[in-house]
């Protein structure tokens, strides 16, 4: 049940794009975003890219135990972020979401503090880097087990529906996640309940080393929407504006009571799977290079330049501002120091039970 009024059709053979590689507007409708928001989207992508570079350095310095590069995913992530009502809607993210939470308003210091495991991390240094969580932003705590957040996301959306809030849940994940049983269980429950949720797959066609053709017999993710009676949208995730417009439509559809949708955003992972990975074992360099030419940041920059909304001057300023923000965030995170050892025994339950208190004493005397 797609509305006539809607701009995009589900199940298109080709990924939806609104700006061309060379930066022209190619959509059948008018651009309706102001210069400020366009520039903000661009700079939100720059911040995401900068995280790879800055945290990568901290990782090599041993100040961060692990990084998950998101270079190549920024277009999809920033498009998703701008389609949400931050602080009102809920996001159930996964570890590769970097530009996404930051563009939603997560303070850079919180991201950095979480990665460094400092006391400035609102989740008290309880998880590996790249597992953000923000109650203030309705940003559900990311968990490592792939797809384990899908059923909770479905439940959140079902709650939104039965309580009649006009909120929407957005849930992100990679292509590999779609093979997990929990992914199916959660998407199917949301579909059966017609809950207001958008499942957004960042398909970089690899699950660590496992290529897409070994992941599933289907030749795409969006076709899997058929299994749940929901529309499946196929989007060029290297096109931030296409990602934004399609997500807006799917989110609006859900908000208006037309139920869930599955959106596949085609992206690429420029870096290794993580700082522990050596992707040269399984990925031809030529493939990586080919995708680098399709960089989502360069693409939007061409578009902005054509429209006279961006130039080298602006770029220099932005780079400088972002670098300064990072220096500041790292400084704050370090200044906050470490979480105390006894914090290990807290938040298992609302209160520390006797048995745990005795174990704490066993350790701390």
């Amino acid at each position, binding site marked *: 049940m797609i509305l006539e009024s809607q701009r995009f059709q589900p199940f298109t053979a080709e990924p939806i794009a609104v700006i061309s590689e060379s930066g022209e507007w190619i959509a059948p409708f008018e651009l309706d975003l102001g210069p400020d928001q366009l520039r903000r989207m661009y700079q939100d992508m720059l911040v995401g890219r900068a995280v790879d570079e800055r945290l990568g350095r901290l990782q090599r310095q041993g100040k961060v135990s692990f990084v998950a590069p998101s270079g190549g995913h920024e277009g999809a992530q920033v498009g998703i972020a701008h389609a949400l009502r931050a602080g009102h809607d809920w996001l159930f993210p996964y570890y590769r979401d970097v530009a996404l939470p930051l563009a939603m308003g997560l303070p850079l210091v919180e991201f950095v503090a979480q990665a460094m495991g400092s006391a400035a991390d609102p989740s008290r240094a309880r998880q590996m880097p790249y597992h953000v969580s923000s109650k203030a932003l309705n940003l559900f705590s990311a968990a490592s087990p792939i797809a384990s957040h899908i059923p909770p996301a479905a439940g959140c959306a079902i709650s939104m529906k039965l309580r009649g809030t006009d909120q929407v849940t957005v849930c992100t994940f990679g292509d590999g996640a779609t093979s997990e049983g929990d992914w199916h269980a959660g998407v199917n429950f949301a579909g059966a309940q017609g809950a207001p949720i958008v499942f957004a797959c960042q398909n970089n066609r690899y699950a660590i080393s496992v290529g897409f053709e070994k992941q599933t017999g289907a030749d795409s993710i969006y076709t899997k929407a058929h299994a749940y009676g929901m529309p499946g949208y196929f989007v060029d995730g290297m096109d931030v504006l296409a990602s934004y417009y399609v997500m807006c439509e799917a989110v609006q559809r859900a908000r208006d009571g037309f139920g869930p949708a599955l959106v596949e955003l085609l992206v690429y992972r420029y870096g290794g799977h993580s700082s522990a990975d050596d992707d040269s074992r399984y990925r031809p360099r030529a493939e990586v290079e080919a995708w680098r030419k399709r960089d989502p940041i360069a693409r939007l920059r061409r578009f902005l330049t054509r429209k006279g909304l961006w130039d080298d001057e602006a770029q220099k300023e932005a780079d400088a501002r972002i670098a300064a923000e990072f220096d500041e965030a790292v400084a704050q995170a370090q200044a906050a120091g470490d979480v105390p050892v006894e914090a290990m025994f807290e938040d*298992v339950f609302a209160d520390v039970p006797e048995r745990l208190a005795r174990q704490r004493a066993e350790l701390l005397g």
Partner: protein
Amino acid sequence: MVQSIARTLDEEMARDERVVVVGEDVGKRGGVFLATEKLFDKYGPDRVIDSPLSEAAIIGAAVGMAAHGLRPVAEIQFSDYVYPGFDQLVSQVAKLRYRSGGQFTAPIVVRMPAGGGVKGGHHHSQSPEAHFVHTAGLKVVFPSTPSDARGLLKSAIRDDDPVVFMEPKRLYRAVKEELPDDLDALVPIGKAAVRRVGDDVVLVSYGGSMAETARAAEALAEQGVSPHVIDLRSLAPWDEETVLEAVARVGRVVLVSEAPRTASVMSEVAATITEELLDQLLAPPLRVSGFDTPYPYAQDREYLPGPARIMRAVQRVLDY
């Protein structure tokens, strides 16, 4: 007991509109054991949700509902079927508060009929409580009487942490009991109940095995042996104080549970007792338990620790 559970769910749903029920066949069917009977007619499909056939969906969705502000009571049709949802229980339910530094919590109740004696074969008879008790972040209760079921279910629903609520299915229709009118008659999680006071041997049990333990206690009393009977009721946290106090006084203890023996709840109780009371022990704590086999079908009765096996163990600790 099952009527007590249905009534309690009704009372709590009436008290707090955030309480919803979700599971397989909990709607019109009222649950395969009728634990949710009449709730659908009274509260409708928004608060009594028939889920798809997926335990991961049931438990996982409950987590999201709870994070969003509801108080879901999830039903797993048989505890044997919790395993498809085990990752949700271990990775989401048990760890949400911890991993988010207390920002998000999962105040849910996961109800499940457990235990054998119903000729259900190994997939309608298992006692998986050890898996839950071993998982940090979960509270686990296993009442054996209708009033404990009511009082503990109320406590579980009102608790800010997740509670696995196990129900001894073979006692569902066993005992009738007058329930207090008090709508807030809570039974605290973590407190055991002394069912019988005695001086010769301490019998510790819980859930379905309380029935056989009580029968064994009767028989022992007739033989002039004075048993002290403790119903744990809560398994995580469990009432170490009540158990240790009794064993310290009596010096002999037999631990009865139908769950498989190895690395079980009673292994923990036994280990804790010796850690704390070695010198007061007049005999080794003995476990009478289910066997380390899958739950059988033909030998449904023989698998369960019945009065005869319990009394043999008591004899051993008395003769020791």
